[in-house]
């Protein structure tokens, strides 16, 4: 254990750190224009690249969703053919998961982890550059499949074999390649994050002193390293089935289509936690800041995150309750899934108790974080319902499941990302985001999200299967409301872009400590954070988490 260090105000280091940074920067002439961005190894620039990329992909994936919702606006086929409908649902899911949510978190990690642990950069800066630039390649390739003969992937983001092998369009080989490239990017990014966190913390910062965003990302990175290779394995098996005559998933050749699902969900369930753990970290930073009170139960937050991560390897077959697993397997996966709700609950209780007897104000990041707590919890409740295996025989593959995962992913993961962006924008740009516009964005998003996804619970319970381009008349009202909500939500996101653009260009100046109650090291460097920070490690002073 490191000896207890003399207390020292963090702001003192920041001035030296910043000065060092600027001096150093003047030494070498960095490339200009496009080359600067292609070749950059700076964690802040790469973080910005990731964030911009994911924002663009968020809109592309969003447009696909709106095409789907437009078709579902009323019964009948009006706008698009079922074949294209399937391509849209598939692409929407793939783009949102792999190109919007995951890169957004990686972008936040790039920007904030070095700042939060007092490191000058990521441990492996060139690898960092490579990880990012793989993504535009992967997703340009993926999107290009839409223009290939036979169209793009049309088998759902879960691409169950044999629909995705024997029965798939010819472009599937490119889909596999794109996913491989994106997977390599994720693994390299995760390795970098682990290396950074384990090796580059400021002197005196123990693991249990790390901000929760760092903790949750560390655990997420281990999840990524563990399961992305499984995804790579399963898509390679598909590739072989399609192109080289193997029969891993082809029953006619002695293969096993259910094996596909086991492999996919062994990746897929941890994947859903990959998309939510960093969100937990962000919310755990924002709520204490604006409640002006230390996070309740820091240690139990860390343990709960670790417990969720470990359990997430043991619950995958809850996505497969109706594939005909043996009774013993059904019971095992039902119990383990119910169990995972416990650490999730602990987190919610901790956030609420942090609010209790705090001194609360409602800046934009806080609005999004509070909405996260409420709406993510609603998604957790439907998750708990889905965990009841006998009931899942009714819920499975209906709009009820669609409602569940959209509650945990949109007002869950995506609201947390937006909360993080509003929280750290002053640090990135040196300006506060426009408060009124941000509030407007928030209220529009809240209304839009609930209008879109709440009726889906009812549609699902009433019997509407997911992934259908047309539906029976009794589902018409639910779908009408959902579609209106979706367009409202989609258009509201333009406000978000506006706020970001305005904030980059100007606005009320932010000091180093942009939020009164904020504690972590990133608030000790000036706003905007200079290109190079913490070139001499700050001395970490332990006022917060541990004792």
């Amino acid at each position: 254990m490191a000896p207890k260090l003399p207390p020292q105000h963090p702001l003192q280091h920041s001035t030296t750190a910043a000065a060092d940074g600027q001096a150093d920067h003047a030494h070498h002439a960095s490339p200009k224009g496009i080359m600067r961005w292609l070749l950059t190894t700076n964690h802040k620039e790469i973080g910005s690249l990731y964030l911009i990329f994911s924002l663009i992909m968020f809109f592309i994936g969003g447009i696909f969703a709106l095409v789907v919702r437009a078709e579902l606006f009323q019964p009948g086929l009006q706008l698009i053919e079922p074949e294209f409908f399937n391509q849209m649902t598939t692409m929407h899911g793939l783009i949102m998961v792999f190109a919007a949510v995951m890169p957004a978190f990686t972008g936040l990690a790039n920007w904030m982890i070095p700042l939060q642990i007092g490191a000058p950069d990521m441990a492996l800066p060139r690898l960092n550059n490579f990880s990012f630039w793989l993504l535009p390649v992967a997703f340009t390739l993926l999107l290009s499949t839409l223009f290939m003969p036979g169209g793009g992937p049309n088998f759902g983001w879960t691409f169950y074999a044999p629909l995705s092998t024997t029965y798939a369009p010819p472009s599937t080989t490119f889909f596999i390649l794109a996913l491989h490239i994106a997977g390599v990017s994720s693994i390299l990014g995760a390795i970098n994050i682990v290396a950074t966190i384990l090796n580059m913390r400021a002197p005196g910062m123990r693991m249990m002193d790390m901000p929760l965003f760092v903790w949750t990302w560390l655990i997420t990175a281990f999840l990524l390293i563990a399961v992305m290779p499984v995804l790579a394995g399963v898509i390679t098996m598909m590739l072989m089935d399609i192109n080289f005559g193997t029969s891993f998933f082809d029953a006619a050749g002695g293969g096993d289509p259910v094996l596909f699902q086991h492999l996919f969900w062994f990746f897929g369930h941890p994947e859903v936690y990959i998309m939510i753990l960093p969100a937990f970290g962000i919310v755990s930073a924002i709520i204490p800041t604006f409640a002006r009170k230390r996070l309740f139960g820091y240690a139990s937050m860390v343990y709960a995150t670790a417990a969720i991560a470990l359990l997430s390897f043991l619950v995958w077959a809850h996505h497969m309750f109706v594939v005909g697993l043996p009774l013993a397997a059904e019971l095992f996966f039902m119990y383990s899934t119910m169990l995972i709700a416990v650490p999730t609950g602990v987190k919610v209780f901790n956030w609420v108790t942090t609010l209790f007897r705090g001194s609360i104000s409602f800046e934009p990041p806080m609005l999004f974080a509070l909405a996260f707590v409420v709406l993510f919890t609603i998604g957790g409740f439907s998750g708990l319902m889905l965990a009841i295996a006998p009931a899942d025989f009714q819920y499975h593959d209906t709009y009820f499941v669609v409602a569940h995962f959209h509650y945990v992913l949109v007002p869950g993961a995506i609201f947390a990302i937006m909360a993080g962006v509003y929280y750290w924008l002053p640090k990135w740009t040196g300006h506060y985001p426009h408060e009124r516009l941000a509030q407007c964005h928030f209220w529009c998003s809240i209304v839009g999200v609930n209008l879109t996804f709440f009726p889906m619970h009812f549609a699902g319970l009433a019997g509407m299967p997911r992934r259908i381009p047309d539906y029976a008349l009794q589902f018409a009202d639910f779908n009408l409301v959902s579609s209106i909500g979706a367009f409202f939500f989609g258009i509201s996101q333009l406000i978000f872009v506006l706020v970001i653009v305005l904030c980059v260009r100007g606005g009320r100046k932010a000091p180093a400590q942009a939020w009164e109650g904020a504690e972590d090291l990133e608030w000790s460097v000036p706003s905007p954070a200079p290109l190079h920070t913490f070139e001499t490690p700050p001395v970490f002073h332990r006022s917060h988490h541990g004792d």
Partner: protein
Amino acid sequence: MRSLWQWLLPTCVIAGANQAQANGWNMPVGVTDISRDIYGLHMTIFWVCVAIGLLVFGVMFYSLFRYRHSKGAKAAEFHEHTSVEVLWTAIPVLILVGMAVPATATLKNMYDTSEADLDVMIIGQQWRWRYEYLGEDVAFNSNMSTPWEQIRGEAARGEHYLLEVDEPLVLPINRKIRFLMTSDDVIHSWWVPDLAVKQDTIPGFINENWVQINEPGIYRGQCAELCGVNHGFMPIVVHAVEEDEFEIWLAERKEAAEQEAMGVDREWELDELMARGEPVYRAICASCHQAEGQGAPPAFPALANNAQLIDDLDWHIDRIVNGVSGTAMPAFRSTLNPVEIAAVVTYTRNAWGGDTGDAVQPASIAEKIVQ
């Protein structure tokens, strides 16, 4: 604004739950003992969630009102409390154990497929269901009967739009019926909410499930697993009837099957085959090869003006009898009878300007199937 929100959410959840039955907002109670059990589990876990939600959100919104910075609230210092933390870990565990017990019992019951009175094989196919009453020599396909004009908005939509079929599955009430479920192509999922049966049909596997229906009636459902372009258009209709009514129906079907079998041995005219072939084509082939045989390349080749097909009758028949492995074209040897195959082959060779004049005889197809 926030108070409105706090009020609105639970209210609309509860309102939804109460009206549920009448207007289709909730899971149906269904017509089997198991569907009732499942409905009970669903409502229990739902109210558990509502209770926890009221508690958690209650504390949360109370804090948001009570401890506001703008009203001069000073933050307290506490940041951990072991016994509270242990408690709120332990209590949820107990609640969950309380849920797991009845859920386990129901699940065991659902898995008990022993001692069935009747076995029905359910086969998923792109994009229809095939039902075979095992040991009874009765088997048929069940296709969606909603006309495409309704889907395209060119005709008024009927009451059971998308949930109607040409031949429903007929089952007796009060008898334990075991389903053996498989697929000829991709994975489908046979789901009828009122029976609380949802089970994937998987190529190469035979899954089991069972029902015992308590009330006669017509129960509708849909395929629940994405299975390709027409996934949205493969509904299920179950006709549950009194037991004696079922016996009569079954006897009629058996006789009809014998009639059809006799048709194999006689000579068929071209016109007869064309007339028999057209509905088969429309029900089975048109979903891929399109209404006018124009196909949808590259996945689904055109049949109209297809030189290879016209030139080589044996090749043509072989494609249909044995399918084309590695593609979406299934083998129809066991899903269509020789008369139907002969008729549809004749139809494709003579419709859309093909005019080969070939009248393919069912007897010759029967020979090919035996090989």
